[in-house]
């Protein structure tokens, strides 16, 4: 094992450009697979868990009694549906909106560490673009999705979509700011904006070190994901489906997938920043000890996502004015308070 690592590191030092290219290509393929397959599993999981909450079976026909092939069936359905663009739509923007959203998702995925390999007493993080300000970069890239959603709503020539787009933007502005302040508070405590270093420096979970920050980040995350109680931009009982009302076929598929991609990425982000990332006791079994950080991260992410689904089945939807009220009047002041707290505590940790 040590030999392989040595060989790789010597190659990396001799040919850094080629090494970066190879890593980039492999990484891009892997994250595209991981994120999309993850999203598919989350869609299936959400349907199953949500059914379980209300004593239903959920998908149970396609692919055996667990209905695991339901996703394949849905994907085929999306691909084979008619591609229609509404009369009077802004065609270019309409076509590009799902693509912008997908690109933003991949941009986020590129900078997020998906875990680490524990080799020889050392953690090797699995991250494609390990940039210095990755926490901030991720936060910024998440906002691009709101722009994509706005493009979709604005270009559809549909009143429901337009209102959904406006709601989405109003909500995004109100919640990106406290979320950003929370990221700053985490960075202050970790003395870094790099997600890998944030995890490495997280000896005490930040959820315990700054509970207010954790709660605000969690709420802002749910808002960013556009899930109940913050799904005003596609509140189906009010504005049909909001910004994606006019989309059908694979274009809708992309927008729909993006929500679940986001759910995967958002949960990972939450775990990385507040729940100790891949930290956890190393499993003392050969080979399993290598991937034990991965297992820990996976378990934490699953628990977070299960919580998100639980929230969906048990909370009412807020009105858009109440959402912005909450964001500006409570979350922003509290997040700044939390930043002050982080500065005081952070100096103690240092």
């Amino acid at each position: 094992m040590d030999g392989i690592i040595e060989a790789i590191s010597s190659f990396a030092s001799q040919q850094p450009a080629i090494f970066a290219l190879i890593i980039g290509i492999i990484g891009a393929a892997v994250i595209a697979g991981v994120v999309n397959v993850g999203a598919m599993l989350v869609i299936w999981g959400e349907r199953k868990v949500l059914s379980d909450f209300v004593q239903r079976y959920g998908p149970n026909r396609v692919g055996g009694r667990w209905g695991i092939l339901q996703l394949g069936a849905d994907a085929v359905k999306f691909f084979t549906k008619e591609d229609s663009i509404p009369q009077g739509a802004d065609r270019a923007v309409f076509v590009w909106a799902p693509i912008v959203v997908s690109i933003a998702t991949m941009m986020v995925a590129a900078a997020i560490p998906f875990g680490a390999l524990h080799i020889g007493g050392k953690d090797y993080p699995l991250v494609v673009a390990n940039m210095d300000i990755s926490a901030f970069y991720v936060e910024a890239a998440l906002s691009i999705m709101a722009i994509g959603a706005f493009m979709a709503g604005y270009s559809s020539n549909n009143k429901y979509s337009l209102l959904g787009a406006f709601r989405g933007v109003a909500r995004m502005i109100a919640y990106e700011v406290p979320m950003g302040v929370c990221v700053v508070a985490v960075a202050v405590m970790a003395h870094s904006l790099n997600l890998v270093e944030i995890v490495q420096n997280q000896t005490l979970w930040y959820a315990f070190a700054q509970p207010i920050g954790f709660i605000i980040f969690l709420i802002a995350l749910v808002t960013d994901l556009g899930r109940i109680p913050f799904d005003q931009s596609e509140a189906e009982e009010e504005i049909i489906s909001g910004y994606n009302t006019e989309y059908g076929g694979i274009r809708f598929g992309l927008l729909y997938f993006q929500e679940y991609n986001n759910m995967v990425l958002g949960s990972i982000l939450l775990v990385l920043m507040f729940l100790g990332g891949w930290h956890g006791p190393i499993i003392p079994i050969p080979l399993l000890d290598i991937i034990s950080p991965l297992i820990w991260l996976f378990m934490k992410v699953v628990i977070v996502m299960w919580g998100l689904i639980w929230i969906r089945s048990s909370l009412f939807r807020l009105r858009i004015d109440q959402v912005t009220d909450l964001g500006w009047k409570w979350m922003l002041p509290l997040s700044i308070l939390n930043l002050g707290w982080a500065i005081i505590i952070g100096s103690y940790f240092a």
Partner: protein
Amino acid sequence: MTNANDVLSSLQSAFPGALTEPKVESEMRLWVAVDSKKIVDVCKFMRNKLGFDHYSGCAGVDWIAKKEFEVVEIMASHDTSNSVVAMLKVKTPRDKPSVPSLTGLFWNANWYEREAWEMFGINFEGHPELYPLILVDELVGSWPWRKDFKGYPDTTTGNRIVETVTNDGYLEYSVAPHPAEVEAGTVPKERPKYPSFREREERDIKSDSEMIMHLGPQHAMVPGPFLLDVLVEGERVKKAYLDIGYIHKGIEKIMENRTWLQGITYTDRMCYVASLTNNECYCGAVEKLLGLEVPLRAQYIRVILEELSRIQSHLIGAGEFLTLIAGVGFAPWQYMIIDREGIISLIESVTGARLTHTFVRFGGVRNDLPEGFADQCRKTLKYTEERTKEYIELFEQDPIYHMRMDNIGAIKPEDGKRMGAAGPVLRATGVDYDVRKIDPYLIYPELDFKVITGTKGDSADRIDVRLREILESIHIIEQCLDRIPEGPIRTEAKIPKKIPAGEAYYRVEDPRGEMGMYVISDGGDKPYRVKVRGPFYATFQTLTPLLEGMYLADVVATAGSMDGCPSEADR
């Protein structure tokens, strides 16, 4: 207690010579023909001096043999000490039918008169907006509920769809009548002129920042097809427009062409979540015409089933509403559906059907209770009671629920009475109006139950009233199960095929409020006229003024909390 005789004598002394053909059926029912010039004054006198503040609707009747139309104004009171229903008949010649409108006195006369106009062609003088309510524009002018109506033009044969391109580039379709039908006279040569629904809406758009949004007829919000248009500026609703008739089945007309017994099945279809009370209302009216006594056991069975039906209706009413403010993934809504399943199975074990029961018969019921019903019923009700208490507690404690629901769509008690809201919507405002108390039928006077009222009349109160009414219904059923006597379930008397001539008005407390049926027999084997005064029709009308100035999300919370059943409003 006010007596029908007293009402009649005070009317006669106030308007000498204006009243003819007085008929007092019982202490609670009064029929009298009023001179059409005096009707507004009579109604004003009744409202202001005698306390008849509850306008329950008007029925048009086509007396083709006498060559006249009759408009029957049904007047009642919200006062618990006054359970008289007065039917004031206004007669008008058939060739030029016109009667004074009561919209100046009763706000809620608006819809009833529009309906009488579009169906019978009776003009209402002084009505502010005499536009069709239920019919589509192409069919106005045929006056379909007149006795000499020959049928609509057949639109299924021939290539008669006319495509037109509007100014903004959209396609619009209309149906052109067949020349042969124009000749035969089934297509009216002249149609009344009025601005269309769309033109009326678009008149109100004042600036570029305003737009009209459709919430319906196909929308996640609507419990059945109806069109609710809102004029919004951003998220604020400036004005709301309501159009019904998308699920109009013409049940009142169909029942005129079916035998008396066949009519029961049609009452099921008016509102399938409350079909037992609909059955009861029709059968009760016919029993009054026949002068039948219902055996005691049958009365108990009817009450048990009608209260069970109320429970399941309230469960779905409250549950469906929750999806509107929480999304379909919301768990408690599905729990309510699961709970409702037990109640439905109970009803099914007696009637054999889950929704459309056709269970109540003239002078009795179809089946007796099956063996072991009482035990099963007690068990299910105990469970339902626990769960309902849990729901009440759950909503009481949920802060987001209160943020969304408190003071949303609040109705003041006087407004509720004035606008004619019915059932839980009216009771949520604090008015203790319940037909089971005010105009008791079956064995309700012997049973102990409270009329549930709210305090604020907002959306939260409406749901709360429904949930607490479930508990009250459970209490009623438990009493019935304890007391139910043995005996026949149908009257011994033979029910004739031809019902003696006469008229009857019978009202019951539907899950959605007061339902009344005005049934006229001319001595034949079919009803001459059946007028249904639906509870949701009455409540529906109060919706549009409530919505003005709200946020769009609150429109959903308000409209949903009405527990709508457009199927019954359209009939």
